[in-house]
């Protein structure tokens, strides 16, 4: 392993980490409000194809990103309406969203397979910073989405802990009836959270096709949506911890494609299981700790809230 491949790997770790982190923060917001959305994989795929197609037709990567976010927010709202308004089972509805998203993206993306990109999100120019050895290529030769992802994480952390909207959002996931009595609309909060989660999953998908792969092919999401869902648990529903997890899982994804170049004899299939094994480990720790204190997971996640009537 030489210096260049090491730098390459760390740089990829950051970009894959940011990709996972964006989708993870979206899912975190949704889950904090009490709605589990297992449709991340589908939303990511839909965001990826939408971004790619819009870029192909308009040659404007920023417009492509924006449209991808709006489309996936609307797509996620299907889940929101089913689960929050109509009271459908969140797991079933979320899984349907994954399959629907994968199907739709394959259908609409068919014509775009093999096309060169219409536009890409080019790396941010940090001037002399990007010339610093090691640090430059790793931190300052990245897609704007990397900085966007970690900015979103910071903002989310602030929103959840320091604002009344964030307090109400967390409350909606912990004790919906309390939030309702306090005068907030649980339905509105949850719908907004699900749509925001969709927008961020879409942004993550668009990032994939506009910056990382710069092409579209069926199955582009490649299970990364699922890793984002696991990452929420791994990060114990905290944006800060999730960032560390995102870099760790991003590193594993980066390693997977480089195992052979590094000449390591370890199955990449086994390697791709590691995020899930780690998540299960964290889940066990969370469960053990939950015997003495409230669980890290939102208490009313997955529960339909209906105002009690006599």
């Amino acid at each position: 392993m030489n210096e260049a491949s090491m730098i390459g790997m760390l740089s990829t770790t950051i970009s894959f980490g940011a990709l996972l982190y964006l989708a993870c923060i979206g899912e975190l917001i949704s889950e904090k409000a009490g709605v589990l959305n297992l449709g991340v994989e589908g939303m990511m795929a839909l965001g990826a194809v939408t971004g790619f197609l819009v870029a192909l037709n308009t040659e404007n990567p920023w417009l492509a990103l924006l449209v991808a976010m709006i489309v996936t927010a609307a797509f996620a709202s299907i889940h929101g309406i089913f689960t929050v308004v109509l009271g459908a089972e969140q797991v079933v509805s979320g899984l349907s969203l994954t399959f629907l998203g994968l199907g739709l993206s394959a259908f609409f993306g068919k014509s775009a397979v093999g096309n060169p990109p219409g536009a890409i999100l080019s790396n941010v120019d940090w001037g002399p910073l990007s010339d610093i050895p090691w640090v430059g290529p790793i931190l300052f030769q990245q897609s704007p989405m990397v900085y966007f992802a970690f900015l979103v994480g910071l903002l989310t952390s602030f929103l959840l802990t320091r604002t009344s909207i964030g307090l109400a959002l967390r409350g909606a996931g912990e004790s919906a009836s309390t939030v309702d009595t306090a005068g907030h609309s649980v339905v509105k909060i949850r719908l907004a959270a699900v749509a925001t989660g969709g927008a961020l999953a879409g942004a993550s998908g668009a990032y994939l096709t506009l910056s990382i792969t710069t092409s579209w092919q069926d199955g582009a999401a490649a299970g990364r949506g699922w890793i984002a869902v696991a990452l929420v648990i791994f990060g114990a529903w905290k944006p800060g911890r999730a960032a560390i997890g995102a870099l760790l899982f991003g590193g594993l994804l980066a390693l997977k494609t480089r195992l052979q170049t590094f000449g390591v004899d370890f199955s990449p299939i086994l390697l791709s299981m590691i995020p899930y094994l780690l998540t299960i480990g964290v889940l066990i720790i969370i469960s053990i700790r939950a015997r003495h204190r409230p669980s890290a997971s939102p208490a009313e996640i997955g529960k339909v809230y209906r105002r009690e009537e006599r």
Partner: protein
Amino acid sequence: MTSESPLAIELVDVWKRFPGVVANAGATLSVKKGTIHAVLGENGAGKSTLMNILSGVYRPDEGQVRINGEQHWFHSPSDALASGIGMVHQEFRLVPSFTVAENIVLGASEKIIRRSLIEKEVEQIAQQFGLVIDPTRPVWQLSMGERQRVEILKTLWRKAQILILDEPTAVLTPAEADELGNVLRKIAEDGRTVVFISHKLHEVTAFCDEATVLRGGKTVASTLKVEEVNESDLAGLMVGSSPMISERPPYQEPGEAMLTIEGLGTLDDRFLPAVKNLNLTIKSGEIVGIAGVSGNGQREMAQAIAGLRPITSGKVTISGKDLTNAPPSERFTAGLGYVPEDRLGVGLAPRLTVTENAILRCYKSLRKSIFLVSEQAVNYCKEIIDRFGVRTGPIDEPIAGLSGGNLQRLLVGRELSGNPKVVLAAQPTRGLDVQGVKAIQDLLIDERAEGVAVLLISEDLDELLTLSDRLLVMHEGEIVKEFDPANAHRHEIGAAMAGKRDES
């Protein structure tokens, strides 16, 4: 406070109907500013509905709500809060994983939360009224008493001028209850008004200035000066008299002892003693009634006998068989029929079908194949339906759609079809319509005629006086007095319910 104090709350002729129930039928309430006012009544008397109307949870069908002389129509609790009315519900509305301060600020209008500022404000209010609490602690670490303080602080922080507390002492230890009394007094002295819902008489006389008594959704006594009445009067007003439908069964000589309870002790949900050293024998062909203000251990006693609550001391035997530590199923086979207070939930499973509910007690013996619902089960269910006159839809559909009366017939029918030797009926007629009440009472009378021993726990004094052969009064987990229902005086029973002991 003098009688010239202006009125803070006026509820005039309030009606509220729910499907099948009239919760408030012309209730009125007048509360003077700066006083602690008790609203008294048994379960189902309409106290909670009336308070929910006052705090904006429900809208009245008819009637007026006047606050400080001004008429209001509240559309939501936040509406009421904006007019200065804060309610402390019996079930706390708190987010366990949030801190005290976060819970207090939840729902406030500030966009950005300045934690230290809020914590300081909360501390200040807490000190003023003697509500000791650390605003930075998460609520899950707090005791029930402390959580209640958070609820009170929540209303005070939002500048509520009127505080409604729904049975606030139900979750408190006696020491915490006394402390609450002091806090409420300080709040009233600050010029605010406190409405205190309760059915614990001694607290009313200890904490409150005035009292209003509700029964059957109506106000039966309003603005009584607490210092001018005693607990027996209040108890009498609460139970009152309702039209009695079934007739007193003819006298019959009781047979041998069927249910024997010796030195029974059990704990309540907070692990405090609920029943203390209780002795009771019920003979064949006898109905023994248990009277008492609710919350004096009746519920826990019934659950302990039925096997749903661990017995901490004493012995329960049914026709000679020791069942103290037996599971509920063994008690059923030994001849105990149990009609629990919570019809849906404990007695019947709302989502199971009529047949499944009917065979819950004996599905093992009915089962002939691997299938749960067999022809035998269906026949068994149909027998119960015919014999007890249950009106149902298709028997393979969930029971949730049945009316209260028919649910109770199904439940009682199931418990009686095991040919019990002892029937334990807790509030069997509560909430039923006239026909339902009569049907259930007649069933109990029939069982008595067939030599079954019946233990009847009820809040309806007339029901107890008519059906019982002996009437026992329970107070704070003990039987304080026995009456002969034929010669009992209502006010004497009221006095016993308030804790006056048998002198002999």
